[in-house]
């Protein structure tokens, strides 16, 4: 039972990690915590279902189109809303509160917009990307989709780590976050980089939505899962891609073990307890760099 709970916790942890990765990309590039990340995941799930059921696309085409549209959506939001808020300033010099409030506003707006669509009043489910009979390891059972989630989470983490550390665009994104004025002076198109970070994070939320919707089920309130992504990010350290994956896994496993040894009722409060514990014991998380203190 404990082994099954631990493995299922790892899978759920990777679910939280995917959301956390989307949060960390934006945080690393713009210093903003995107409170609409959960709604991005929710929108991607509904979009995927729409493309499959209504437009009759096949699964690979749906994945490509959903991720592309989500990329465009994130970039558009940055261009039309955040860019106006930042104005001519660089992100690091701009007031963060209006930007964070804009993401909170966006989350409510997306939730409200989805609720207007009649069929969303029911719980819906996107067909899984990886389907087929479950896989057994002795008495342990795992769905193929679960294994797929773990593999995708690890691959995304590796790709992003390599991308941020070894590619020109990744380095430009980091420079934009760390010192936008200096980045601009050496010719990095700061605004374009910010737009790209939002597009990238939104595209990642698209992948997360496609993977998570079969597992978490889709309702307009599905975006509340962002709190678990935030918890994973805080545990791992808000600036570490590896950290947030490990943070997600720790969170998923602890939740399940608490569900077994304490009570399922305690599962819902576990993330908040862990957040408090980490903030008190290790404010930068398990793998995070020391964060700059900003007045927000």
């Amino acid at each position, binding site marked *: 039972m404990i082994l099954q709970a631990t493995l299922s916790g790892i899978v759920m942890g990777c679910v939280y990690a995917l959301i956390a990765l989307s949060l960390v990309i934006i945080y690393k590039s713009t210093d903003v915590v995107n409170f609409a990340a959960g709604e991005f995941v929710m929108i991607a799930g509904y979009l995927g279902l729409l493309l499959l059921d209504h437009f009759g696309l096949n699964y690979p085409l749906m994945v490509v189109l959903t991720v592309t549209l989500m990329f465009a959506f994130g970039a558009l939001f940055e261009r039309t809303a955040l860019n106006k808020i930042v104005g001519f300033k660089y992100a690091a010099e701009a007031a963060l509160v209006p930007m964070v409030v804009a993401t909170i506003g966006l989350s409510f707006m997306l939730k409200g917009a989805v609720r207007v669509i009649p069929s969303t009043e*029911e719980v819906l489910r996107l067909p899984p990307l990886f389907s087929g009979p479950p896989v057994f390891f002795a008495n342990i059972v795992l769905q193929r989709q679960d294994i797929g989630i773990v593999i995708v989470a690890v691959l995304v983490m590796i790709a992003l780590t390599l991308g941020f550390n070894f590619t020109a665009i990744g380095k430009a994104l980091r420079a934009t976050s760390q010192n936008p004025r200096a980045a601009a002076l050496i010719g990095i198109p700061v605004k374009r980089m910010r737009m790209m970070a939002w597009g990238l994070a939104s595209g990642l939320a698209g992948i997360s939505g496609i993977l998570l919707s079969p597992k978490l089920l889709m309702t307009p309130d599905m975006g509340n899962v962002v709190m678990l992504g935030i918890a994973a990010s805080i545990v791992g350290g808000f600036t570490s891609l590896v950290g947030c994956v490990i943070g997600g896994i720790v969170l998923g496993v602890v939740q399940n073990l608490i569900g077994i040894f304490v009570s399922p009722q305690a599962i819902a409060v576990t993330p908040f307890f862990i957040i408090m514990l980490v903030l008190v014991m290790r404010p930068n998380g398990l793998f995070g760099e020391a964060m700059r203190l900003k007045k927000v």
Partner: protein
Amino acid sequence: MSKRASKRRFTACAVTTAIVALTATASMTPARAEDPGITDNEILIGMFGPLSGPLIAYGIDPVQAAKMLYEEANKKGGIHGRKIRLIVEDDKCSPNDIVSVVKKFVTIDKVFMLHGGSCTAAVSAAADYINREKIPYAMLNAAGDNAVFPPTRYVFGSFQGTQRAYAAAFATFGAQFLKAKRAAVIVHDDEYGKANAAMARATFEKFGVEVVIIERIPPNISDLTAPMLKIREAKPDVILSGAYPAPAVLIAQKYAEFGMTAIPLLQAAQGIPTPSVFAKNVANPEALENFYYTWAFNDIGDAAVRTKYIDLFKSYNNGREPGPFMMSGIPSAVAVLAALDAAGRDLTREGFVNAMEKLNLKFDAMPGPLEFGPKRRDGARTMVIIKYDGKTQKVMPGTYTWDGKEAN
């Protein structure tokens, strides 16, 4: 005793007697003849339900169904010559909204009575105000456990059964039909789940079934691994679930994933708003090999009943096919119409409440009577059990009626 003292005592006695008599008369009077919301040719009813927001499915079709029955009654000349006029408001199933809507109906629109509410927490929030203002109130389709237990004079509800009735029906079915000896119960950690679990345990124990585990889960739970593993470890031979739609799907998925499909899974109706959508979400036929749910209506087993109400609904809604909750708007409207009729032409609020209290109504849409009494405000206690395999729904033999005895 002096003459003056005797006169004073007589005067005091007379005044006291007069006050007592007036008070008694006032309390015994059925109602003021000039109750608000009634004219010679109209009865004004304030109707509400969730017409927007995430719980819209529980309200939109039931409200339309109740409206169509009132309009049908109006077509036949109304009730004792009075037509029914409705004012409809959206309560979003929110306690704050429902209280505002009810206050608006009472103070601004001055309605005769209230009819509405699809969610237990919301209707419970309005119950105090309704009783204080002495406004007759019939719930639309909320289970309403907290609003009808303990019973209060003006609040009538549970027209499709309470959580107590669902749990009692399932536990009786599990013990008597499925011959279970060890039961597991999984419910939410809210008032809804508390009522469900207490009644399930009491009923199972009445039949000598051991309740081996009760798991309480948060409504927003995203991973059912831990509770379902604990249930598997407890080795039950029947599982009763009172979960809401999303957790109900996750329960069914884990139940199949962990190889528990030989154990019957009994799911209360609130978890499967639309059976076909539920089956599609579960996406595993094995999970539904041994699956049952409670239902408070005859429409599944009786095609004539189904056709009758669906056709009527479509005729009032431009041919639109109703959702599965449409039937839940029927019983309360039927009961209100019957009580208005029984209260007679000299209709007053108190007269209507008295008529509701005496109601014992059997009609085609329900497997048992809608019944109230001086100490009873929950209308429906009889359920049928449906076996659902993802394609076909089969009504199991018999009906299951809660005896009204509270769980300790």
